[in-house]
């Protein structure tokens, strides 16, 4: 390689490497702010700010969904298998909402660490399968369970 080309190659490599380092450091500094939601553990530890709009994400705890018979009010608990957070919501839930489903709720934490949600989004996992396979897996108890780290990075 002639010296001119070698010099240009070095400049290009330096450019790519320099940008990577700069962006990497910025993202590292911002890492908590890039998270879309807080996990129930973070809320339990008091890392989530109160009385401002935040999002909380976790799995809906089995048997925790209580619907009001007179209105659209619903309460349920979400968990990352370490801590749980109570969520109160009034409105129509997404189709995929069910017990054991991952969700992300947007709202404000009140004084008792209960999330007063204004929006509930369903988070689905990376596993896809035909209904027959899902039933067979459920029958044998081998259904893949999302790991706690999905909600707690």
């Amino acid at each position, binding site marked *: 390689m002639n010296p001119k080309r070698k010099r240009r*190659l070095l400049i290009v490599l330096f450019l*790519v490497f320099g*940008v990577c380092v700069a962006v990497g450091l910025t993202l590292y500094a911002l890492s908590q702010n890039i*998270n*879309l939601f807080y996990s129930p553990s973070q809320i339990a530890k008091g890392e989530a700010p109160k009385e401002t709009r935040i999002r909380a994400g976790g799995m809906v705890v089995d048997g925790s969904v209580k619907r009001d018979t007179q209105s659209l009010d619903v309460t349920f608990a979400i968990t990352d298998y370490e801590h749980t957070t109570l969520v109160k919501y009034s409105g129509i839930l997404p189709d995929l909402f069910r017990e054991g489903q991952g969700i992300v709720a947007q709202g404000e934490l009140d004084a008792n660490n209960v999330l007063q949600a204004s929006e509930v989004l369903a988070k689905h*996992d*990376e596993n*896809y399968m035909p209904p027959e396979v899902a039933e067979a897996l459920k029958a044998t108890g081998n259904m893949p369970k999302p790991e706690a780290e*999905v909600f707690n*990075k």
Partner: protein
Amino acid sequence: MSENKKWLPRWFFQLASPRWCYDITGKLLPGFVIAMLLLLVTGIVWALMFAPADYQQGNSFRIIYIHVPSAILAQSCYMLMAIAGAIGLIWKMKVADMVAKSCAPIGATIAIMALATGAIWGKPTWGSWWVWDARLTSMLILLFLYLGVIALHSAIENEVTAAQSAAVLSLVGLVNIPIIKYSVEWWNTLHQPATFKLTEKPAMPPEMWVPLLVMVIGFYCFFAVSLMLRLRNEILQRERRAGWVRELIEKQ
């Protein structure tokens, strides 16, 4: 120069000749068109009619057969554009500049397709068209990078300067590719993690992932076809004063 030839293959230098490049793409084009048609038609029919529905999402999950190939291709196309730009910067190779320029509009279109199919899929499954999570936002930045490269090419009249500045922009934007890939692992996002990992079995049975693989390869063939068509146009336009181009046009 002689030392140079020892470690770089011959075709690398042949690619530098616009005429050789025009001829070889002309020969490759029909094969890729046939492969593209076969794969895309088989893939679409297989995916929409024969692949099983998902146990949770039902039939709406079938949009994965468009969404995933376009998202993969949008990133591959960007990498090709950046590498071609780097070769253009270092070796001052005209054809590499033309490849980089031809990649940009194709990549932008495919990135729009990935974002649009993602939004359409997000509404029924998540309950929202758009969420500012790390994966969606970094993908949007990829689209803006493509638009920036297109804008640079059309704003600067001198072809050499335009190619150089667009190449620098694409190299700077290269840092976004690993961010898109790992965003779902580094941060809490609404977007689910990857179904396919190099080290593990796919989280999907073969009757679902085989048609997806067919679609991905079909999309790559489609990209090859549209890139070659654009590249051939670009070569003819830039080499319009060369003798061989005039002969070619007079023959027709």
